[in-house]
């Protein structure tokens, strides 16, 4: 069964079509990236899958049921760690919202801290964390919710390129351990190819799925993968598609 299905989805805002018939599935445990020009409606698509918005026509399902709040776990572009909560309390927020008692929510969030490189920072304030740690904390807050799907909206866009590469390889590691179903928005073609099983390319607005690329490269992918001829060829293919539309 597909973890996410998006079929014939259209969405307009004030008579401006943003999504113009989007169709795709994401299988359970699959890592799929969505790339496309700026303003092509990627965030609108995520809003629909997160259940924050409903399509004008078409259907979106998550875990076999219509998309609704609380079915997919969203990691927004901004880390949105709240300065009034400690790091572990930030990570436990989604569980608290679900009604899980605070102590248990904190314990479950804290369990992720070693693997997320946050051990010892449980009671720190978000302001004390580095940029990479903040993103890892935001990801911990997302995956601890235990939802069918994890939605990552440009998770590493705010990081410098060195940190970003480290974070991408780290994300692959934690993902390979637990195999959550991931749908990731990114502008970064290299990031999409490095991390994904499949890359979807959106056209400029109004968006359709313009192209779909499978990434059959073996895992775990490493820094050497970045220079592998197959990797470079895929990256090239995607860059060409993006630029031919722009």
């Amino acid at each position, binding site marked *: 069964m597909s973890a996410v299905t998006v079929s014939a989805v259209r969405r307009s805002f004030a008579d401006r079509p943003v999504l113009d018939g989007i169709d795709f599935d994401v299988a359970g445990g699959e890592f799929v990236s969505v790339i496309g020009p700026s303003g092509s409606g990627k965030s609108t698509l995520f809003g629909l899958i997160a259940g924050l918005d409903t399509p004008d026509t078409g259907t979106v399902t998550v875990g076999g049921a219509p998309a609704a709040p609380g079915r997919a776990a969203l990691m927004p572009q*901004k880390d*949105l760690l709240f300065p009034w909560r400690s790091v572990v309390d930030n990570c436990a927020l989604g569980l608290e919202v679900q009604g899980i008692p605070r102590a248990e929510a904190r314990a479950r969030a804290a369990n992720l801290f070693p693997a997320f490189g946050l051990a010892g920072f449980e009671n720190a*304030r978000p302001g004390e964390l580095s940029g990479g740690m903040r993103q890892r904390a935001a990801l911990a807050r997302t995956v601890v*919710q235990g939802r069918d799907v994890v939605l990552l909206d440009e998770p590493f866009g705010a990081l410098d390129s060195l940190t970003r590469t480290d974070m991408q390889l780290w994300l692959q590691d934690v993902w390979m351990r637990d195999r959550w179903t991931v749908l990731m928005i990114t502008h970064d073609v290299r990031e999409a190819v490095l991390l994904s099983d499949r890359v979807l390319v959106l056209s400029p607005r109004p968006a359709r799925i313009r192209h779909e690329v499978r990434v059959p490269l073996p895992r775990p992918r490493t820094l050497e993968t970045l220079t592998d001829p197959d990797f470079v060829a895929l990256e090239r293919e995607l860059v060409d598609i993006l630029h031919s539309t722009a």
Partner: protein
Amino acid sequence: MTTSRPDPSSPRWVRIAAPAAVVVLALVALWQLYVTVSGIRPQVLPSPARVLGQGWAHRDDLAAHTWSTLQVTIIGFAVSLVVAWALAIVVDFSPWLRRALVPLFVVSQTLPIIAIAPLMIIWFGFGLLPKVLVIALATFFPMAIGLIEGFAAADREAGALLRSMGASRGQVFRYVRLPSALPRFFTALRIGITYAVVGAVFAEYVGATSGLGIYMSTQKNSFRTDLVLAAVLVTAALSLALYLLTYLVERIVAPWALTTGNRT
């Protein structure tokens, strides 16, 4: 090392307070000089030394009236706080009530207190109630608006994040909008608390059995300018103390608002 670390706040505090202290001392010195040189009658302008000396001589009287004013200020301000919080929350949840009530809040601030306060005495007598109402009227608006704008200033994306987690409107309020509003609230609280003392003194001035306001009025009528100014000094000190107290409360309730520079 067994010695405690030097408190980094006290030198900073001195650096912050020193310029104001220098200016105040210079003005007081100028005032003293003028009174001494010109030989002006103390009924018209007493010297600062005389204000302090006579204030000290009447300290029991002043303390009793100050206590009375402080009580009225705290009760009035507490009422204002409770009403401001309650209405700001109601307005945050209901766009209809926002449109219905916010214009009334603005009107409440435009009422000339100078005209309303005597009417309050006529309507409600010389007791606590008219003073509480005057203070509430003077302080409600900045705090209610501070809260309403504070709630509205919460990050929209943070609200969306909470909703994606399945949060109810109430949970979004509790986890995002309420804490987001606190920095603005404390700014509004500082404005409100200074209005509160002035409001209390004004309400007492118009008619009261005790308090700094009625004390000033009585002393003025017996040409004790020195004691009027002594009461003014106490009023200023009281306002300043309450103002500084808000920083202490903020440090306890919302320490992140002071340390992260997250103020908007």
